[in-house]
């Protein structure tokens, strides 16, 4: 039996690894890896996308190595807090509720949401002022990503809507096509590229104006990090400023979209 315990002890040391200190040379970056075109695996099996480009650009400027960690969306913040990685570069919007638990850099792209539904379905969900008409959501099944800004928006603004929560963005489109949901709310840039411009999205269109209530969608998408890392945050912001001003962010966006998706001018946000 003694032997077994020695073995176990030896194993424990192996498994726990070396305790790490905060001043890491290597920064671990959490993302979904299935959220094209922001973070995804390309045909060569390499991580690619706007978020990935931003992360690499930042890393180059601050002189750190990167290690990417793939994480399902609903566990992204718990994983960050549990120290599964150091940064979230995963198209995560900077919102007040998230700021209570974590910290963000300055935004590196804008954050909005938009509803997608069947063409000519006669859905009349928003009034002319761009406000949702709650009554018209009755009987409409809505697909959302669990723990997304869109889910928070629906819960607050349309609490009676019939909502199904998915573990990843990809499933939203699958079930919209399958008819299990009538509308979905998601990032319009992604919806356009991944879905509306493709064959399987041909019968669908945006059925709402852009929704960008700051309370829910925040001031944009930033790099997430644990609280209390102000030095790191300062370095990230410095790098993002450079990337904005030297045109890199625009260059990254143009790889995937016909337009830029960041705030064109560097306006530091409090």
């Amino acid at each position, binding site marked *: 039996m003694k032997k077994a315990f020695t073995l176990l002890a030896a194993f424990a040391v192996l498994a726990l690894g070396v305790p790490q200190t905060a001043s890491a040379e290597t920064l671990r970056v959490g993302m979904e890896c299935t959220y094209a075109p922001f973070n995804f695996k390309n045909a060569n099996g390499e991580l690619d996308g706007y978020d990935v480009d931003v992360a690499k650009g930042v890393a180059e400027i601050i002189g750190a190595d990167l290690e990417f960690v793939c994480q399902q969306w*609903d566990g992204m*913040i718990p994983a960050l807090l*549990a120290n599964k990685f150091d940064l979230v570069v995963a198209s995560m919007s900077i919102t007040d*509720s998230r700021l209570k638990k974590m910290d963000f850099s300055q935004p590196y792209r804008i954050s909005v949401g938009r509803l997608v539904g069947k063409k000519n379905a006669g859905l009349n969900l928003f009034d002319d002022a761009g406000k949702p008409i709650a009554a018209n959501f009755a009987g409409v099944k809505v697909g959302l990503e*669990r723990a997304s800004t869109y889910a928070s928006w629906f819960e607050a603004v349309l609490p009676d809507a019939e909502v199904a*929560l998915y573990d990843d963005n990809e499933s939203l489109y699958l079930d919209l096509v*399958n008819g*299990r949901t009538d509308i979905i709310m998601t990032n319009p840039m992604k919806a356009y590229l991944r879905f509306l411009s493709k064959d399987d999205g041909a019968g669908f269109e945006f059925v709402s104006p852009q929704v960008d209530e700051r309370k829910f969608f925040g001031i944009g998408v930033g790099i997430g990090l644990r609280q209390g890392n102000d030095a790191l945050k300062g370095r990230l912001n410095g790098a993002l400023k450079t990337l904005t001003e030297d045109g890199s962010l625009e260059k990254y966006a143009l790889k995937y979209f016909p337009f830029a998706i960041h705030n064109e001018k560097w306006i530091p946000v409090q």
Partner: protein
Amino acid sequence: MSFDFALIVDSIPKILTGIGLTFQLLFLSAVLGLALAIILLLMRISGRWYLVAPTMVYIYIFRGTPILVQIFIIYYGLPQLEFVRDSIFWPILREAFGCAIVALTLNTGAYVSEILRGGVLGVDRGLKEAGAALGLSARHRFIYVTAPIAIRLCLPAYSNDVISLMKSTALASTITLLDMMGIARTIVAETYAPYEIFISVMVVYLILTWIIQRGFGWMEKRMSRHVRSEA
């Protein structure tokens, strides 16, 4: 590390709102799965190759692949096929609940039919012969001799399978259902407090397991009165 007890107190009622769905998934798929298992068993012991072979393939496939993959194939995979969406099954497969029931039923049916077969094989051959020697038909022998003895023999294994099934219902949370697990995951996503929430829901699952075990223990005791001699 701080353990937020207030959060637990807050969350438990929310988690419990999902217990109804967990129960529905468990009971419906347990009952349907048992029916399927009996059909599979009868096919398997029919001795006719055209009934035996498909049953064996079915059991091999469903026991040889992860239930999570089965759930994904049924929920996300099947709609890719045009004819499935045009079929009469679409109203069931359209709903996440229907898909979960179908997946859990098909899965547990394969396991339970093997358990039942073990029970049937465990019945002493001499007892079946005694029935035959009395002139009981094959059907009567199965109903009155083999089946009641086999049921007692497989009860312990069956109770374990019901517990496995209960644990599998938690996977329904991966296809949008808000069972206990689904609600727990949603709360975690909102509160970023996995530890507190997951431990709370774990306690609820453990209580359910305990209840199932107790229930079957009681049933076993009642059913095996004949084994207790003189006591």
